[in-house]
């Protein structure tokens, strides 16, 4: 079993597409506009076309406009979703993204599993990136895996 596509709800598909391609360097895997809110856009991280993120916009007729507005407010509050990325060099990638103006949540920090940092996408979704590297920080005593 695999997970070829995950859906990430966004506030504006054009802006999301711009963010994921121009800021993060993802490539467009598919972009099909069926009119209204029905536009299928998937993007993939560099070098991994088999991993797709669906940039999904929720609105009528899936839900009524009032519900769509509530969902939008939740996304904007930052509780819409989280995307976990793995990178080769967390600090360098972070610096590059800051130069591009991303909203930072957490600067790179060393953890027992590597170095990670966090930022927001253009909609407010939480994006974390981790560099798997030996930091010398001991895992908690109760660690059971990983």
């Amino acid at each position, binding site marked *: 079993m695999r997970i070829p596509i995950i859906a990430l709800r966004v*506030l504006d598909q054009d802006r999301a597409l711009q963010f994921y391609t121009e800021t993060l360097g993802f490539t467009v895997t598919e972009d099909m506009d069926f009119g209204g809110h029905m536009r299928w856009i998937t993007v993939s991280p560099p070098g991994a076309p088999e991993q797709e993120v669906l940039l999904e916009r929720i609105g009528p007729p899936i839900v009524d406009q009032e519900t769509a*507005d509530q969902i*939008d*407010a*939740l*996304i*904007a*509050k*930052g509780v819409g979703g989280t995307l976990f990325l793995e990178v080769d060099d967390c600090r360098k990638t972070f610096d590059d993204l800051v130069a591009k103006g991303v*909203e*930072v*949540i*957490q*600067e790179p*920090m060393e*953890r*027992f*599993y590597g170095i*990670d940092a*966090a930022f*927001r996408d253009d909609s*407010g979704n939480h994006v*974390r990136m*981790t560099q798997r590297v030996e930091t010398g*920080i001991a*895992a*908690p*005593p*109760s*660690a*059971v*895996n*990983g």
Partner: protein
Amino acid sequence: MTAREAAHLRRAKDLVDRSYAQPLDVEALARRAHCSPWHFSRRFKEAFGETPHQYVLSRRVERAQELLRNTGLSVTEVCLEVGFQSLGSFSAAFHRVAGMTPTAYRSTMAGFPPHIPGCWAAQWTRPSTSARMEKRDGAGRG
């Protein structure tokens, strides 16, 4: 609440998560959210369930808890690391939020949580501001 207003409030909340160790007051956070301090405090609580002041305190205590659990820093070092100016204010805030002293917390919770990303733990282990704290702070305080 519109998505636009929610985004402004989220940016102020993110500022706390990012700069919890720096001096943070309601005026500065309100500026980040593009609204007046009074309006900001009221809307922040409506959006996130607690006042900005409570959020700052609970975030600092959460960060302190991680350091107490996972490092050998002294209580005083932890206090300064997370943005408190004195051991007295740190201990009082910690007890109000966590219900025990920092030393008692360290001995009770060493090694918690298990092997999960620290970012995830930071979101889920931030202490809820208790009814006692709410009562002491006063409903309108930001």
